[in-house]
Every structure is written in structure tokens, then in C-alpha cells.
């Protein structure tokens, strides 16, 4: 601790930080541009000037930049000395020299850090009388607008994009007053984190292109705390709504999870909510193909009757539906008739993952833990594509190694340019073992390429190297043995090693081998964390709810044990071979589907219940860290759209269970869930109860400057409609309510007096860059036992043996395209590749195939003809098949196949 004096008052503060961070944490309004809590200090903008005094007798003092000043004992500063105020106003005057006066039509207006800082410093009148510099803007692809004239040259974009996120195709060009921030030529930004530039840029240079198509000012957005539904990490988001459509997603800080950043899938994937083709009414389809719209009461009565009278009803839940929706469906049909909506193998892997995280071997890593790790081994999971935000955290972990030498040399972490200069000399090791190249390879110490079985063998070999009492892996080539000892050595030397794997490889062996490494480390008395990635926002609860695999559902229907199937937010055609799904639809008498997408399942269903999307729903999701998090309605759904679970509660109530009506209170439902499934008892505590009030008030979803409230529906109705009630949450559809900082899990937006931009977040944190006031949102459902758990027998897979014409098909995931919901956003769709098959150039040669030429892929599950994409990093005899792309069916991967050039018909040539 050090004692410092700010404006004559004494403060005891932590050493090791820069003065700006400390002052902001103390609550002082010191303006800044180039500093960012995640990017630290570089001293370029010169706005955070304060005056420093030698001692109490020094009255003259001298100007220093607070961001570049270390906290030291006895530091004496003034934040409001007249000379300081004059200088800060001058900085704004300089920055305004070339800045357009387009605030009224600027996309950033109303949440612009430059506006805030201009007002804060008091610069008003323009003295500069010459022409402004102007720039040519670039087309940066479907996600971002580029308006270079607004640039104030703070360098934050390139520092985030290049230094933090590892991007290569954004840079600053030119010199002196002519600086251009952009690409070397127009083109889509390559990084899947480019959308963060929207929040990183302090003005309107980089703005959200999806927002621009349905633009709304920040103060006019109705917002609520939400959780991203586009992968399993559970990043916290703030969706914004106006006029019944979702306008954008902003990051909602959670110090343990996403911190300041989202991936582009999470930021731009929301537009499925606005999809006009999504189910809007309750539809009953007749055998003749007729569609009847049923009123809700009639529909629920019909369903209640149908279910009561059916001989055998099965409920199919979904890993992309909330815990509540899954649970109520499970209650409706009975646990013995419930399926969590996954195929046998997916369920088996998910069960293994949840079991590992719940019972050890190691601490389940939050993204913050991932970032804090000082050695990382990634097994079989292409994290950049399956859980992108985690890849960003892994990328930061390499700096832990840098910290070790910079600490010795007296370079604080906040001195970013000096710190990063030494990242070249020392960095924490990262090992990436996957089927093909990943976007983490550029920071990897070593990489390994092989089939899923090879990757698993590598994991088991590393575990044996760490703990020789574990079974060895026989017959590895010497280069693999060398890699194994490198990995083992790095993990043993680390203070906080981390093993990353997940389900996307489709291989239980891979997951087990990752667990085995953690077991070996813990067994040796080392610390270890483990991060096991699952693909969907609620994959984690599927094995906890238990139930049938989809194969068993089909078997039951085919065998006549069930005639009615109720599907909740699940497109079965994406989870099983289409032949099996077809069979289910043919054999089942009734298939009732509740969903918010117009999926193939919805098209084929006998009855469709329109479900609310995450933006219109309240519910709970459990991330693959094991963190339960609540999401709230951003907007009220248009009847008869409602949360899937509310549909089912209505049906249950009509089936002689009137007691379930109380489940319409989400807190009561969560209490019931906790009672019935003890493993999920933590879900009750992950957010405040609905009856929470602060100073007697709810938390308003609308900003106090929300405009047009009385006129919004005036084109239809002159009376101002009553705002919807929301008895189930502590949030209100109103501008009125508690105006200050609410509990962390119900923060609907970041705003503070004088801070209209996202930088107001500083005011919501107990310490800048730390946790939110009151703790970071979410409740971890499990903690690893303090002692290493048992070590079950795992079979080490043999190297795969292939016949002469046999190949292995491995799954490849695309950040844009492999996820069901986000691909409906036009911007994401534009970045989604067309179906292809990946082959290494050598293998392609052996087939006489070139890039783009068609090959025939014969799997046991079916045949495909696809164009070739050359993937140089694929091992021999391995082909890659993208998962989940529109137009490509479901195949259980990895699997064997036969690849042959596609024989074109004469007429094709």
C-alpha cells in the first residue's frame, strides 16, 4: 500500500498500478482516450494530465500524464489545477481540429466517449480556421462501418486488434497529422473479434453495421441483462430493442467471464430474433396440409387432451433452450419420457464433461482463470471456432510468462509498450493439438496435427510423462515423444497450468485424455484447471436433466411405445441423420414443436408453438464453466409468442396440475428445479429474486432519456398503452425506477452522469478492471473437490488403421456458419462458407483433385459430393467436413470414409 494525496485528500492505495487507474477507481473523473483498462497505458493522447507536486511546500508543481505515472509513496497530485484544466481543454481543441461536427447524424452520438470528454474538459469554441483533413473510408465487410473522418488517432483500435486480439489486417498508416487506421485495402476484417472495435473506438470510426440498418440511439434502446446464446461460454450481453425489434448486442462486463469483449458471432448473431419467417402464431396442421391458427386457450386445451389421450408421449428438450424450458417439458412428460435432445454420442461426451467438472479432477476454469494460466495445452478443440471468446483469453495467457521477467526488471504491467516489447523474450507456453491449423497457432509454442485418436494418445502420453504410474502410450514416433516431454515439462513448471478440450472433436477419448492430464497434475500435488468446451448455451444441463438419447426416442416411436413427440427448441435434423429424423416424423402420430426458428422440424411438425427468443424470454443458462446465469426479457413477446416453458406450464395446468400455475413465477419454478435436481440448486441464487426492490423501486429497462414513449404507437392508437407488467423479474418496462447502480446481475445498461459511453463501466466496478460492484454475475454450480478424485480406467485408443482407400473424416467448425441461430443474421450469413470438403494438397493430388473440384465422400451414414477446399495443415488420409453449415446434413464425426473424385456426367463437361 502507498499513501497518496489527491486534491489535498489522503488515500491509501494499492501499489503497482498507474495513477489514472487508481484515480478512476477512487471515483475521480479524469478524462482519457488512449488508455483502456484492458489495453493499459501508452501515454499517447495526453488527456489524462494531472499536476504533481514534490511535497507540501511545492506550489508550482508540474504536469504529468496520470496513465504513465506509477503509484508511489507520498505522491501528491491535483486533478483540477487551472493549468491542468487548460491543458486538457487544449487537447480536446487539438483533437477537434479535424473532427467533423456531425454529432447529430453520427452513429456514435449519445454514447460517444469523445462527446463526454469534450463536455468534461469544457472546450467549447473553435479557433482553428483552416480546412479539415478528410479521408477515404473503406468497406470493412458486413459487420463494421468505417468513417475515418471521425478518427481522433488514439491508437486504441490497432492496439486492441493487433496486440490484444492477434489480428493482422488492421493497422495505422501514414505519419504526422495524416494517420489512417484501416486495412491496406478495402475488405472484410479477418479477426472474429473485430466487432469489439465498436466499443473500443472512442468515437464513431468503427460502428455496428447491423445497427445501422435499423439505427436507434443508445438512450432510445430498451435494454436488459442477457446471456449470449451462440456458444457454451455464457458471455454476458446487453441486447437493445426499439419498436419490437432487436437492434444490437453490446458487451455486458463480467470480470469472471467475458470481461470487456465479445466475439463477432455473439455480437452480430442476434438477427434471428427479427426474422420475419419465424413462427408467430399457434398453428395446427391438418393431414391435408391445411394450417389452422388456434387461439391460445383452445390450443392448450387441445394439447392437454392430446397428451392425456396419447399412448406414449416423449418430450425432447434442447441444449439451446433454457433450463426452465427443458425442466417444464421434462415435468410435462415425466422424467422417464424425457430426452435432453442430444444423440447418444453427444450425450455421452456431455455427461463425461459434466461429471469431470463436478467431481474433479480439477478446477473448472472461468475465462478469467484461462487468462491467468501460465501454461495451456489445447487438445482437439478448435477454440477459435467453437468458443471464440476463450481463444481470446488463451491468447492473453501468454503474457503471464512475460510478467515474470518484467517484474524482475521493474516494468509494470500497465506500461504496455515496454511490457509487450518483452513478450518476445518471455511468454507462457501454449500447445495446440488439433486436426488442422487453428487461429491460435501464431501464439503456440508447438503445434501437433493428427486424428482425434492421435490427439487423445498425445494427451494420455503427456499424462504418463507427468505421472509415470499412469499407463504409457506405446509406439509413438520420436517427434511425438519429444513433444510429449515438452508439454509435460511446461505443465509441471507452471504455477497455474490449464488443460483445454471439449466436445467438438466428437471424441470421448480426447476429453478423457485432457482429464487424464489434469488428474496426473493434481495427483502429483500440482494445481491445475480444466476448461471443457461444449457447443451450445445450455449444453451443460442436458446430462444433468438426464433422459433418453435421440436414438432411443426414434426407437420408441418406431416400436410404437410413443405416438406423440413434443420438441422444445430443437431442430432434430441438425442432431441426427436426416433419415432417422424422417422416420420419427413418419411414425409419430403427433409431433408438436415449440420454437422461434423456422426449422425443418417446425416445417414438418403437426403443431407449432411460437417460442420466445432469448430477447423475449426470461430463463437460466448454465455455461460450460458450470456457471448458472439469468437472462431477462429485453422486450415483451407479442402474443401468442411466449417462453416455451410458459406454453408447457399452461398445458400442464390443464392436465390436472393446477399447482404448476405458480411456476409462472420464475422464482417458484427455480425453487422446484432446485428441489427436484439437487445438482442444480445453485440456480436460484444466480440473480436476485423477482421481488427485489431498491429504495422501493424496480430496475428500469429504459434510460431516463428514453424518447417518444407517448408517441411510439400513435400511428395505431392515440392512447398511450400501459407498459407491460413483469412480475417475474426485478426489472420494469419503464424509464422510471432505481436510477443508480443495481445489483450486478440485473445491470441493464452502463451509464453514469457525465459518462454516456460504454466507458461508464468504470463506475460499475469496485476497482477499475476488476469485478463489478457486488461481485461478478452468475453462480458456479460446482467446485472441484480439494483432493484429486478417483482415476477411472480409461482405455488409450490405438492409432487408427486405415485400409488403402479408407480415410478419416473429422469435423471442422466455423465461427460463422456452424452455429444454428447466428447464421440467420445477414452479416454472419455473408461470412459463412459454402459447404466443402477439406483435403490437404498432397492428398488432393493423389486423388487428382484441385481446389474447387468435386469429390465423392462415401460414409457409412451416407454419401456427399462436395467441392474441395485445400487445407495445407490436414494430416494425410484425413478429410475435414464442416459442421452445421446451412445445406449440409448431420453426420456423426469422426468416421471412416472412402474418398473418390466425382465422376461427372458427360453433360456436365
Amino acid at each position, binding site marked *: 500500500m502507498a499513501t497518496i494525496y489527491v486534491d489535498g485528500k489522503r488515500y491509501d492505495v494499492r501499489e503497482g498500478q498507474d495513477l489514472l487507474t487508481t484515480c478512476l477507481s477512487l471515483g475521480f473523473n479524469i478524462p482519457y482516450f488512449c488508455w483502456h483498462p484492458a489495453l493499459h497505458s501508452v501515454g499517447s493522447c495526453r488527456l489524462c494530465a494531472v499536476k504533481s507536486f514534490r511535497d507540501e511546500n511545492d506550489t508550482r508543481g508540474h504536469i504529468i500524464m496520470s496513465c504513465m505515472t506509477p503509484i508511489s509513496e507520498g505522491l501528491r497530485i491535483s486533478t483540477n489545477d487551472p493549468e491542468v484544466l487548460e491543458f486538457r481543454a*487544449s487537447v480536446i481543441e*487539438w*483533437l477537434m*481540429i479535424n473532427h467533423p461536427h456531425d454529432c447529430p447524424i453520427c452513429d456514435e452520438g449519445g454514447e460517444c466517449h469523445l462527446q463526454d470528454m469534450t463536455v468534461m474538459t469544457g472546450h467549447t469554441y473553435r*479557433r482553428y480556421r*483552416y480546412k479539415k483533413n478528410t479521408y477515404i473510408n473503406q468497406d470493412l465487410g458486413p459487420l463494421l462501418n468505417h468513417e475515418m473522418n471521425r478518427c481522433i*488517432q488514439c491508437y486504441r483500435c490497432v492496439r486492441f486488434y493487433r496486440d490484444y486480439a492477434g489480428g493482422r489486417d488492421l493497422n495505422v498508416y501514414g505519419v504526422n497529422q495524416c494517420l489512417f487506421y484501416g486495412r491496406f485495402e478495402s475488405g472484410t476484417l479477418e479477426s472474429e473479434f473485430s466487432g469489439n472495435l465498436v466499443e473500443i473506438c472512442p468515437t464513431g470510426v468503427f460502428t455496428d453495421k447491423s445497427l445501422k440498418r435499423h439505427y436507434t440511439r443508445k438512450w432510445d434502446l430498451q435494454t436488459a441483462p442477457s446471456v449470449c446464446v451462440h456458444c457454451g461460454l455464457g458471455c454476458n450481453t446487453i441486447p437493445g430493442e426499439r419498436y419490437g425489434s432487436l437492434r444490437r448486442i453490446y458487451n455486458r462486463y463480467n470480470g469472471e467471464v467475458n470481461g470487456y469483449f465479445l466475439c463477432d458471432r455473439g455480437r452480430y448473431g442476434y438477427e434471428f430474433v427479427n426474422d420475419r419467417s419465424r413462427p408467430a402464431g399457434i398453428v395446427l396442421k391438418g393431414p391435408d396440409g391445411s394450417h389452422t391458427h388456434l387461439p391460445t386457450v383452445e390450443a392448450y386445451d387441445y394439447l392437454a387432451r392430446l397428451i392425456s389421450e396419447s399412448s406414449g408421449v416423449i418430450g425432447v428438450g434442447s441444449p439451446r433452450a433454457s433450463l426452465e424450458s427443458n425442466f417444464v417439458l421434462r415435468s410435462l412428460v415425466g422424467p422417464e419420457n424425457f430426452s435432453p435432445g442430444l444423440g447418444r454420442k453427444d450425450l455421452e461426451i456431455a455427461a463425461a464433461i459434466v461429471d469431470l467438472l463436478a467431481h474433479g479432477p480439477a478446477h473448472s476454469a472461468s475465462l478469467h482463470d484461462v487468462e491467468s494460466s501460465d501454461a495451456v495445452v489445447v487438445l482437439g478443440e478448435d477454440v477459435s471456432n467453437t468458443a471464440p471468446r476463450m481463444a481470446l483469453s488463451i491468447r492473453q495467457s501468454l503474457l503471464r510468462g512475460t510478467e515474470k521477467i518484467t517484474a524482475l526488471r521493474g*516494468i509494470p504491467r500497465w506500461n504496455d509498450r515496454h511490457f509487450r516489447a518483452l513478450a*518476445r523474450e518471455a511468454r507462457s507456453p501454449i500447445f495446440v493439438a488439433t486436426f488442422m491449423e487453428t487461429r491460435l497457432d501464431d501464439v503456440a509454442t508447438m503445434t501437433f496435427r493428427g486424428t482425434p485418436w492421435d490427439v487423445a494418445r498425445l494427451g494420455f502420453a503427456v499424462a504418463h510423462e507427468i505421472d509415470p504410474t499412469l499407463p504409457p502410450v506405446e509406439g509413438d514416433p520420436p517427434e511425438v515423444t519429444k513433444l510429449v516431454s515438452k508439454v509435460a515439462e511446461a505443465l509441471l513448471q507452471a504455477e497455474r497450468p490449464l488443460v483445454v478440450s471439449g466436445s467438438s472433436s466428437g471424441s470421448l477419448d480426447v476429453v478423457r485424455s485432457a482429464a487424464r492430464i489434469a488428474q496426473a497434475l493434481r495427483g502429483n500435488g500440482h494445481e491445475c484447471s480444466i476448461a471443457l468446451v461444449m457447443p451450445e448455451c445450455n449444453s451443460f444441463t442436458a446430462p444433468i436433466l438426464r433422459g433418453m438419447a435421440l436414438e432411443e426416442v426414434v426407437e420408441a416411436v418406431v416400436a410404437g411405445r410413443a405416438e406423440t413427440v413434443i420438441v422444445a427448441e430443437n431442430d432434430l435434423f441438425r442432431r441426427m441423420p436426416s433419415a432417422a429424423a424422417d422416420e420419427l416424423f413418419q411414425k409419430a402420430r403427433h409431433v408438436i414443436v415449440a420454437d422461434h426458428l423456422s426449422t425443418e422440424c417446425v416445417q414438418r411438425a403437426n403443431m407449432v408453438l411460437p417460442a420466445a427468443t432469448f430477447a423475449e424470454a426470461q430463463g437460466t443458462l448454465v455455461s460450460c464453466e458450470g456457471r448458472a446465469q439469468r437472462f431477462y426479457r429485453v422486450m415483451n413477446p407479442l402474443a401468442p409468442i411466449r417462453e416455451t416453458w410458459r406454453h408447457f406450464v399452461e398445458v400442464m395446468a390443464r392436465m390436472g396440475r393446477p399447482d404448476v400455475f405458480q411456476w409462472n413465477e420464475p422464482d417458484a419454478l427455480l425453487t422446484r428445479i432446485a428441489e427436484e435436481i439437487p445438482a442444480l440448486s445453485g440456480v436460484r441464487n444466480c440473480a436476485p429474486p423477482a421481488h427485489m426492490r431498491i429504495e422501493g423501486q424496480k430496475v428500469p429497462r429504459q434510460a431516463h432519456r428514453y424518447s417518444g414513449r407517448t408517441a411510439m404507437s400513435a400511428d395505431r392508437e392515440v392512447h398511450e398503452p400501459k407498459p407491460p407488467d413483469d412480475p417475474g423479474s426485478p426489472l420494469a418496462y419503464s424509464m422510471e425506477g432505481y436510477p443508480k447502480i443495481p445489483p450486478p446481475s440485473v445491470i441493464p445498461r452502463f451509464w453514469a452522469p457525465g459518462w454516456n459511453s460504454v466507458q461508464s463501466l468504470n463506475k460499475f466496478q469496485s476497482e477499475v478492471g476488476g469485478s463489478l460492484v457486488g461481485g461478478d454475475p452468475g453462480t458456479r454450480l460446482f467446485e472441484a473437490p480439494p483432493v484429486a478424485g478417483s482415476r477411472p480406467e480409461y482405455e488409450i485408443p490405438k492409432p487408427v488403421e486405415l485400409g488403402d482407400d479408407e480415410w478419416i473424416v473429422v469435423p471442422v467448425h466455423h465461427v460463422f456458419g456452424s452455429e444454428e441461430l447466428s447464421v440467420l443474421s445477414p452479416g454472419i450469413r455473408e461470412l459463412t462458407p459454402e459447404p466443402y470438403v477439406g483435403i490437404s494438397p498432397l492428398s488432393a493430388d493423389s486423388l487428382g483433385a484441385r481446389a474447387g473440384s468435386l469429390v465423392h465422400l462415401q460414409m457409412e451414414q451416407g454419401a456427399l459430393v462436395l467441392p474441395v477446399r485445400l487445407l495445407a495443415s490436414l494430416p494425410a488420409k484425413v478429410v475435414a467436413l464442416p459442421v452445421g453449415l446451412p445445406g449440409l446434413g448431420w453426420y456423426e464425426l469422426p468416421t471412416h470414409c472412402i474418398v473418390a473424385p466425382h465422376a461427372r456426367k458427360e453433360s456436365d463437361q
Partner: protein
Amino acid sequence: MNDDERRPLTKNIRPGRELRTIDEYERTGGYQGLRKAIREMSPRQVVDEVTDAKLRGRGGAGFPTGIKWRSVPSGPEWPRTRYFIGDADEMEPGAFKDRMLLEGDPHQFIEGLIISSYATEVQVAYIFIRREYTRAAELLSRALQEAYDRNYAGRNILGSEYSLDVHLHISCGRYICGEATAMTSSLEGKRAIPLSRPPRESECGLWGMPTVVDNVETLCNVPHIVRNGAAWYRGLSLCADGGTKIYGVSGRVKRPGVWELPMGTPLREIIDEHAGGMAEGYRLRAVIPGGASTEFVPPEQLDVAMDFDSMAGVGSRLGTGTAIVLDDRTCPVGAVHNLIKFFARESCGWCTPCREGLAWLSQILADIEMGRGRDEDLDILASHTRLLWLGRTYCALAPGAMEPLKSALQMFGEDFKRHIRDGRCPWRS
């Protein structure tokens, strides 16, 4: 002391004379300093000798060279890899002394660089040369090869344990590269942007490693100090700082040029005796004594000794020691505009005050010079000399640019006002 001994750096340089070969250099005692250092002295002894000689950096800042070398940290937590950079990025307006040393006697510089690298226990040295110095680069490249051929550089120099690789790097050409940390950034292939201190480049410089950066003229002194000793070197000077200084004069004088003179030679003597006084029909109005980023010295202060401390005493700086004389037939506003335009162009663009402020000042000065000035412009100019001062900007470039502007506003205030009042430049017909 004979004439040659009084001017050790330039004794072999004659106007119009082509490059001396390594043989010629060796015949006049060349590489004897290196032999002595490597065979008879420990690195520490070389550092002590240079410290004792009171050699101060000739690049402009005047930092004592020996102290800089001593500040290179050693210890288990510091890397063994260290770098030395010979700064041949002479780009200060008015300065052309390093060019003469490089073109006239490249081996002297190379020998100095090698001895200095030995003294600081460096394994790799770079010569960072200004892009426009093509002739010097050519000559250096040849001289380096000769030095390698005779084992003055490379593996096991002169049979010792000491090895050094020397690389010649031709700059992409920015003034800011003359700033040591911008130079290391540039060498790393990054944008030439200075780095804040601390840590100093002697701790974390090129590629994060301890790095010493010394100017060409500074390094040229080192072989002579090692050969003849610190006491001899101090004896060359007229003041407390050791050695000679290459002084230069440009402007409307009879004989513009550079001369090696004792450190502390009065400015008046340099202009009147060595540069031959003002050209016919011109009167001296002021002198920028040490390159573009030093304050104007008025005629009544010309008796000041041209050394670091005396120049600071009259509110200016020795800088590079290459003076520009402003005469009475040149518009001082135009002259200052020319300087500020240069600095605005050469701003690296990193910090706001320098990037935006200098460009604005340049436009205002152009307006005043063209007769479009306004009264309030003088306030803007004056306030910027405070706002662009040390501590407010990231590095010393903009404060350096403010030195001539600040003194010009004081010294030629009436000329600025007259431009604005008359709506024209009195020097333009």
C-alpha cells in the same frame, strides 16, 4: 601540441579529399585505440577512461557518455544480449558535422563503435544511418568490410575472446528516428515512435534488451581517448567538458562550414573568425546555435562559450553545435515558419499536442507570413509554446520546435505584429 593533435577527429580530413583506405587510417594510428582497449584494458577500464575524459554526448542532449555506459544493468535478472547503436541519423536542420566525419574518415567512427561496444560488452552493433546519406553509407559499407577482413570486427577480434557483429542499417528516413527509442522501434520494423522512459533504453531498448545509442561524433572521440588518455582529452577543451567539438555555421556568412575547435570556443569567434563573419551587405540578427531545436541567441550574447553549460546559461542549448545565422534581409517569421513546418511534417503522430498542435502552428505562421494573420494568432502561438512543452508532449520533438518559436516571439515580436498590421511580409516585394 601541434595542430593535428589539437584536432584529433578531423586531422585526416581534408576538403575535397576522397576516402582514406584502411591502410592510410592505420598509418596515422588507426585501430591502435582498439588494439590497446582489447589487449590492455578491461571493458570496465575503457568505461572509466571515457568517464574520466568527461566526454558528453554530441547528438544534442550532452549526456555524459561514461555514465550512460555504466547505466547498462548487469545481474542475473538482466539478459546477456545487449545492443549498441551508432547513431548516424543526422537530420537536424543546419547540422552536417556527422556527414563530414563519416565521409571523411569512416574507419575512425567504426573503430569508436567497436571500442564502445567492447566497453559495454555488446555482441551486436548497428549503424543506423540517415537515408539521404548514400555516399556515407557506401563508404561505411566498404570500410566495414575492411574492418572485418582485418579482424577488427567479427569473431574473436584481434585474437581476443571478444566478438562483435556490426550491421549497417539504412533508415527509411524520419527525423524522429534520431530519438534513441524511436530509432530502436524503427530497427525492430515497427513505426518510428519514441518510447517513454523509464525504463531507459540502456535497460530495455532494442527488442527489449539493454541498448546503448551514441552519436557519430561522440563515438569518433573514443579511439583518441583510449589512445591518449583522459587527461590529454580534457586538456583539449576550454571548459569543464572534455575534448574538441565540431562546430558548424550556415547562413549568410562569408565561409559556411564545419571546424573542429576546443569545446567551449565562444560563438562570436566561431562566426567571426572561422566562418569569416557576415557576408557583404548582411547584418546578423540572431543565431540558432545548435540546430533547429534550440533558442535564438541575440547578437549581444554572442560572446557565450559554445559548451553545454554556458549555452544553458543564456537560455539556449548547445545542441549539435551547428549554428544557423539569421541575417537582417531574411524574414524571421518566414524562417520560423520554415522550421515549424519541418517539425510538423516530422511529427511521428503519436501524441496529440505534437501531431495537431504543430500542424496548426505551421498553418498560422504561413498565414502571418502571407499577410493573412490575425491578432489572436499571436496568442495562439504564445500559448502553444507553453502547451507543447516538456512533460505535456510524449517526447522532446515538439518542445524542441517550441524553442526557436518561443525566442522568436520575444525577439522578433514587432516583426510578427507588423506582418499582421500591414497584411503583408515586409521582406517580400
